[in-house]
């Protein structure tokens, strides 16, 4: 018994149990339902889905918007992280904040605010028509390119974060060697720098691709009335269509297409990164090569700063303008300004305050639980040599590829019955939303922590063991302090989107257990766009404040 406790096997046991109950069990329900028609096992759903010609168009649309937006995000994200980590560009801290803001704004809010700016009657188009006298709008946010635009804006920060770390850990001597060999700066970038951080680029690419292909808010807000459907909006439509019996089963089988695409993406990443071994990131601190931008320094700083200002501040201003007007649709002139909407949500709408507290509890709880389980699973994946351990990182990434609505329904089916032993159901409590968030977001924890763990050289742990430390003491004294940055970034990577999660919560909330996004959505559904915008502003403020707080804390911690 003592041996069992010391060896840490019981921690594995708890993590695997959590994995089975929280992730595998609801996943099995979805897979099972996709093979059930009229309560019998059959392939009927797949036949229905695969023989419908319009599904292929939807599939193509999904791939098109997610692949193109992933490519754009990669180009922008990598370029920005190179500028920030490897050049003498000015105001790096402000630039980083500008890069982070678009990521911190929930994508459905981002889509709504870009619509307010760039719809045919959006603010920017109106200004353009006003200035030029044109009768046609300059550009419309609707359709595939608008979807790609908003998806890119929401996800390039993710690429930046992941590749920025890689740039910082990379030994400059590789680049210097190429430069000595006579390669120009651009050639060095192309031939040495990019290939060396390829693993980070690939992992961020897969993350962005999977989250974009499973995104529902953006294509539904910007694509629906153009009849531009993607898999997630199609699945939603199926679920909402009461003329179809067994719509959940058909939706589940269509969701399997999403899962399959995600699996291919993850496998591709795994295959491409594992072909060669990259022993480049040593953790040895070395001098970084900083490119002198010279006479272009000011120009480039201004250009990048200006663009970032546009895409991070403009949408916030649009929401702010709406939140301050007396009624939706009125021009934002002085006469129409009011703080009434803020007064309403803060003092007259108990649900708003309640939902803020609920979302904070949920985001905090989900991030903490997911990181807790994630540390153990990531350790198991990276530090043991058990056969098939990679399957775990595969399994935990599957829910992330599913549309929130499907997760929500699977969670209902999985958790509505009273728990054995306790005889209580978590349905209609806050905890069912927590369970769903953990299932959905855990892959983010497993991935970021895994990549931190890979960088912890095995001998550091062996030195601890030989010094007499048990498995647990080694974890506590050596491993956890060393992977702390990865743990914190994983935690925030979950905390921030969970704070504004909508599509899962919308099916699982109950009276008294609303989330912020549900409150925003309900306000909007009632036609109270101005109050919805005010609440959105409060949410954005909370998220940005939380992010700044985390930055401040981690800076203080690192001395």
């Amino acid at each position, binding site marked *: 018994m003592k041996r069992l406790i010391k060896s840490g096997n019981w921690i594995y046991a708890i993590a695997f149990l959590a994995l089975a109950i929280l992730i595998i069990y609801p996943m099995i329900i979805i897979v099972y339902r996709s093979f059930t028609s009229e309560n019998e096992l059959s392939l009927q759903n797949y036949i229905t889905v695969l023989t419908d010609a319009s599904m292929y168009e939807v599939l193509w649309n999904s791939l098109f918007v997610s692949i193109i937006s992933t490519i754009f995000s990669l180009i922008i994200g990598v370029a920005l992280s190179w500028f920030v980590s490897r050049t003498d560009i000015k105001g790096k801290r402000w630039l980083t904040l500008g890069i982070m803001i678009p990521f911190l704004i929930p994508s459905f809010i981002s889509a709504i605010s870009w619509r*307010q700016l760039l*719809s*045919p*009657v959006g603010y920017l188009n109106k200004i353009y028509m006003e200035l030029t006298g044109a009768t046609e709008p300059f550009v419309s946010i609707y359709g595939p390119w608008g979807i790609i635009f908003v998806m890119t804006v929401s996800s390039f920060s993710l690429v930046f974060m992941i590749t920025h770390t890689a740039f910082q850990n990379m030994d400059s001597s590789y680049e210097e060697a190429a430069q000595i060999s006579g390669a120009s700066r651009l050639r060095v970038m192309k031939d040495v720098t990019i290939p060396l951080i390829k693993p980070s680029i690939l992992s961020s690419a897969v993350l962005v691709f999977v989250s974009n292909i499973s995104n529902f808010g953006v294509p*539904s807000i910007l694509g*629906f*009335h*153009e*009849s531009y*459907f993607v898999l997630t909006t199609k699945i939603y*439509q199926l*679920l*909402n*269509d*009461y*003329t179809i019996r067994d*719509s*959940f089963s058909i939706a589940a089988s269509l969701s399997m297409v999403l899962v399959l695409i995600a699996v291919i993406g993850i496998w591709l990443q795994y295959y491409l990164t594992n072909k060669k071994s990259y022993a480049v990131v040593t953790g040895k601190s070395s001098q970084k090569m900083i490119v002198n931008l010279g006479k272009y320094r000011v120009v480039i700083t201004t250009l990048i700063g200006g663009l970032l200002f546009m895409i991070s501040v403009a949408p916030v201003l649009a929401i702010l303008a709406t939140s301050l007007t*007396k*009624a*939706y*649709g*009125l021009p934002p002139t002085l006469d129409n300004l009011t703080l009434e909407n803020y007064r309403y949500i803060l003092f007259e709408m*108990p649900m708003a*305050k*309640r939902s*803020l*507290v609920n979302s*904070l*509890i949920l985001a*905090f709880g989900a991030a903490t639980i997911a990181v807790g389980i994630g540390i153990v699973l990531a350790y198991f994946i990276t530090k043991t040599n058990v056969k098939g351990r990679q399957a775990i990182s595969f399994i935990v990434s599957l829910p992330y590829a599913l549309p929130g*609505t499907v997760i929500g*329904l699977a969670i*209902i*089916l999985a958790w*509505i*019955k009273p728990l054995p032993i306790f005889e209580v*159901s978590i*349905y*209609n409590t806050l905890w069912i939303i927590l369970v769903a968030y953990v299932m959905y977001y855990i892959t983010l924890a497993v991935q970021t922590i895994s990549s931190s763990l890979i960088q912890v050289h095995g001998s550091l742990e062996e030195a601890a063991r030989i010094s007499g430390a048990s498995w647990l003491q080694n974890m506590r004294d050596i491993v*956890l*302090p060393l992977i*702390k940055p990865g*743990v*914190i970034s994983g935690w925030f990577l979950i905390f921030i989107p969970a704070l504004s999660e909508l599509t899962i919560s*919308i*099916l699982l*909330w*109950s*009276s*008294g257990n609303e989330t912020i996004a549900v409150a925003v959505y*309900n306000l*909007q*559904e*009632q*036609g*109270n766009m101005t109050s919805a915008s005010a609440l959105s502003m409060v949410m954005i403020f909370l998220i940005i404040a939380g992010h700044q707080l985390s930055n401040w*804390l*981690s800076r203080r*911690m690192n001395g």
Partner: protein
Amino acid sequence: MKLNKFIIALLLLMITILAACGSSEDSAAEGNEGVTEEEKITVYTSVPQDLVDEFKAAFEEAHPGKTVDVFRAASGELLAKLQAEHDADSVQADVVWVADFQSAEALKELGLLEQYESTEKDAVNSNLIDPEGYYYGSRIINMVLAYNTNVEAPASWNDLHNPAYEGKVGLPSVSSGTSFSFVGSLAADDNFGWEFFEKMRENGGKQYSNNQDVAERVVTGELAIAPVLDYMVTGMKLQGSPIDYVIPEEGLVMVASPIALVADSAAPETAKSFIDFTLSKDGQEIMSSQNVVSVREDVEASENVPSIGDVKILETDLDYLDAHNEEITAKFEEIFTN
């Protein structure tokens, strides 16, 4: 060690915020305690939150000791959730209150509803009651023609074909039950037919995800005119948004939102009394005060809505809609997604 400090700092922040909001938390929790199952009901609804909140408050005041929990969502999500609960044999709702008869029919077919003879049955317009007694129309909402007040007001449904509004017309998708009734009624009408929608499409007509989406776009001016539910227009208009509606000369399409008792409710008596209260004179007066048309003739209409007796109504053949359910959806999709 430092990691702990970090987590502690965050926890402290959380607790501070929780404490700040603590008062509202506590009262909400207390309200639910000491309430036996039979005295607490859950209402699943797609009617606006404001409206259902008024009913909850009034009912709880009239029936001390009884509590109403509300889950509100759009029709689609509501039905998906109910279906999932039904699949798991654990339906949580005691009362469902949806926007249109088609949704109620779908629930009835699933076997989710239970017949109930309301004490207010006789006072309610008999056209609005399910002949089998499964559900009762509890409020009347109308599909009318909304317009942005910065453009010229339309007069007829056929204005949706008017080149003056080209590219600025739209309607809610038929996945919304009220829109389904509207589309089905016009498609079955000899004066309109599917040709009406084809022409609308030619005039740049588009489908939007729901009524609210359409109303919002009329407000911003992205749409000039569009069929949409009257109470939404009234609500936004009263807030000051540049939107209004007309009742087209051909008549409006009337939709009644049904309320029904859920089969095997854990608190059937309270559920029944909530339904009765909704249909009662007191309840219907709340409707009227919220600018919604009442289902009772003995309730006076609000000044913001036209009295039902005065306006022309396009006939809706519910049996036809039911029988041609899939056909209507398919035809609509065909026109508006090409």
